[in-house]
C-alpha cells in the first residue's frame, strides 16, 4: 500500500469499441479499483421503462411477464444527468415530460403466421402525448436531450438485431403504454448501463488470493488468462512475498448501449468523487467539529437546523429510523446540539439499544457496548458482523473475477501490529 502511495495512479486503454472499453489500471489499491467497478455497475443513472399500462394484451404472455421484459430493454440515456430529472425530485405528482419518457407499443397480427414483437416496435410519444395529464411547464432538461433520447437502443440501426419481447399469432394483439424513468442500478438492475464488467488482477496468482483446485498439476489444468502476458510469471524458486499488493488491474466495461463506455467510466469517476466530497462536507458541518452552525454547512444545513428542534423529541421517543442520530443516542437528550464532542459514559450505555437494532441475529453487543471488559484491542464479538460476503454480490462469479476485495484482505493487510484484525471488521 505504501508502494501505491509513491507511484501515481495510471491508466492505459487497451481497446475501445462502440460498446466496450478495455483498460489497465495501475498503482492503485485493490479497494480503489473495486470501488470503481462497483460504482460503474450500480451508481450511474440511466432511463428504463418503469411503469406499464396495458390496454390490450391477448398474447400468450401475462401482463407482468411483458412488463418485466419491457423494463429490461436498454433505452438511449446519453447525458442522463442533465436531460431528465428523477421523479422524486420533480414537482409533478406522478410523471411529466421533465421526469419521464412515454413510449407506446401497439402491435396486432392479422396474417396467418407467427409474428414477433420486438423493441423496434416501441415508439417514443412526442411531447403532445402529455395533453391529458397535468400541465407542467417544460424544464431546462428537455432542451438537453439528444434526438433519440429514450429510444430503444439500436432502433435506428438496421444492422443491430432488435430485442424480442413476445411472439404472437393471428388475432392476438398487444397495446401498452410505458413510462420510462431515470434511476440507478442500486434500485433495480435494469438501470445499470453495464451488461458486464470484467475485473482481474494478478493473473499468475502470485499473491495467492485464490486457490486452484487441481488433479495433478495446476499449470497444466489452469490455462493462463489473456492478461498473463502483461506480467512476469512466477519463477519456481521464488519465495512467496506475503507483503505484496496487487498493482495492475485489468478491467473491461461492456455497456448495454444505453450509455457509451466512455461516458460510463467518466461518470463513474465523477460519482466516486461526489460521494467522497459529500462525506467531507458532512464531516465539516458536523456539530462535533463546529460549535456554531456557520455558513460552512453548505446548502443542506439550514433547513436541517430548522426542523431539528421540532423533530428531535418525537423521533427519539418513537425510536424511529436514525434521523438525528445523536438525539437517539442520548434518549431524550440534547440532540445534536451538545457542545462537548464526547458523549458521557451514561449516554453511551443508553445508546446500547441503538446498536442493538442493527446487527443480524447473533451480532449482539460488539464493541459499542459499555461492558467493562471491553478494553482497547478486545476483539469484537465474532459472529454476526460478517458483512464481507455482501461485497461479492456484485462481483461476477468465477475465481479471481470481480469477487469482492474486502474478503480477500483480511488477515494480512493491517497497517500495524494491532491485534484487531480477525474480527469481522474489514481492516
Amino acid at each position: 500500500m505504501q508502494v501505491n502511495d509513491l507511484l501515481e495512479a495510471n491508466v492505459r486503454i487497451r481497446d475501445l469499441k462502440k460498446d466496450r472499453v478495455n483498460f489497465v489500471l495501475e498503482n492503485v489499491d485493490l479497494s480503489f479499483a473495486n470501488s470503481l467497478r462497483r460504482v460503474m455497475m450500480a451508481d450511474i443513472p440511466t432511463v428504463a421503462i418503469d411503469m406499464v399500462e396495458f390496454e390490450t394484451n391477448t398474447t400468450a404472455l401475462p401482463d407482468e411477464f411483458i412488463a418485466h421484459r419491457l423494463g429490461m430493454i436498454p433505452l438511449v440515456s446519453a447525458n442522463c444527468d442533465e436531460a431528465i430529472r428523477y421523479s422524486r425530485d420533480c414537482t409533478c405528482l406522478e410523471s411529466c415530460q421533465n421526469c419521464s419518457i412515454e413510449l407506446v407499443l401497439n402491435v396486432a397480427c392479422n396474417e396467418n403466421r407467427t409474428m414477433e414483437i420486438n423493441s423496434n416496435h416501441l415508439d417514443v410519444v412526442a411531447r403532445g402525448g402529455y395533453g391529458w395529464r397535468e400541465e407542467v411547464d417544460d424544464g431546462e432538461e428537455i432542451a438537453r436531450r439528444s434526438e433519440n433520447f429514450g429510444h430503444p437502443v439500436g432502433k435506428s440501426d438496421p444492422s443491430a438485431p432488435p430485442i424480442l419481447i413476445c411472439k404472437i399469432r393471428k388475432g392476438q394483439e398487444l397495446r401498452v403504454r410505458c413510462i420510462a424513468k431515470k434511476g440507478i442500478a442500486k434500485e433495480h438492475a435494469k438501470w445499470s448501463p453495464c451488461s458486464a464488467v470484467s475485473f482481474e488482477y494478478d493473473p499468475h496468482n502470485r499473491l495467492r488470493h485464490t486457490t486452484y483446485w487441481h488433479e495433478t498439476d495446476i499449470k497444466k489444468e489452469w490455462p493462463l488468462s489473456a492478461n498473463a502476458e502483461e506480467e512476469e510469471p512466477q519463477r519456481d524458486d521464488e519465495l512467496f512475498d506475503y507483503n505484496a499488493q496487487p498493482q495492475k488491474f485489468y478491467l473491461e466495461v461492456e455497456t448495454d448501449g444505453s450509455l457509451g463506455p466512455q461516458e460510463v467510466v467518466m461518470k463513474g469517476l465523477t460519482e466516486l468523487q461526489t460521494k467522497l466530497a459529500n462525506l467531507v462536507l458532512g464531516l465539516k458541518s458536523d456539530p462535533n467539529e463546529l460549535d456554531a452552525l456557520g455558513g460552512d454547512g453548505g446548502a443542506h444545513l439550514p433547513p436541517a437546523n430548522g426542523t431539528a428542534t421540532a423533530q428531535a423529541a418525537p423521533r427519539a421517543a418513537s425510536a424511529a429510523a436514525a434521523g438525528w442520530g445523536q438525539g437517539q443516542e442520548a434518549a431524550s437528550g440534547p440532540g445534536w446540539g451538545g457542545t462537548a464532542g464526547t458523549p458521557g459514559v451514561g449516554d453511551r450505555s443508553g445508546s446500547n439499544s441503538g446498536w442493538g437494532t442493527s446487527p443480524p441475529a447473533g451480532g449482539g453487543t460488539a464493541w459499542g457496548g459499555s461492558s467493562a471488559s471491553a478494553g482497547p484491542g478486545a476483539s469484537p464479538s465474532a459472529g454476526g458482523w460478517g458483512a464481507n460476503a455482501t461485497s461479492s454480490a456484485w462481483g461476477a462469479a468465477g475465481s479471481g473475477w470481480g469477487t469482492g476485495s474486502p474478503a480477500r484482505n483480511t488477515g494480512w493487510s493491517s497497517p500495524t501490529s494491532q491485534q484487531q484484525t480477525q474480527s469481522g471488521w474489514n481492516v
Partner: protein
Amino acid sequence: MNASNAPNRYELFVLDEGEKPVEVTEDTKIPNAATIKVVKQDHTLANMIRGQLHAMPQVLFAGYKVPHPLQPYFLVKIQTDGTITPTAALEQACTKLIGTLSSLEAKFKREFSFKDVEGVTTEDAYGSSTAGPAWTSRRDYMDF
C-alpha cells in the same frame, strides 16, 4: 398508485430530508479512536476509504463494517497515533482519494481522446454493430 406499504426503494441511497450524512462518535475507552457512521452509502465508499486510511502512517487502526445488509449505512472505526484526530484522518483520506480520482480522470480523458483520433467512434454508441468479441491486444494503441 403504490398499493403496498413498502418503503420507496430510493430510500436506500438518498438521504431523507434533513438527514445528516455522517455522525462521529468518539470512543470512550480507546484513546484517539472514533467510530464514524456514514448513512446511505455502502461498500463502494467504505472499502475505498478503509484502503486509503491504511496507507496513512498516523492511522493505527482502520476498519469498516456494514452491520446489516438491509440497513443502508456503514461504520468506520479509526484509531490514530494522536498526532491527528480520527475525523481529520478520514477527511485527509477522502481528500487524497478525490485527488487520485481527478488525476485518473484526466488520464482517462487523454487516453480516450487518443482513441478518438485513431478513428474509433465513441460518440454514437448505438450505431452499427461492428463490435468484435474480444479486444485485439495492443495493436492500435500508441504509447508515447
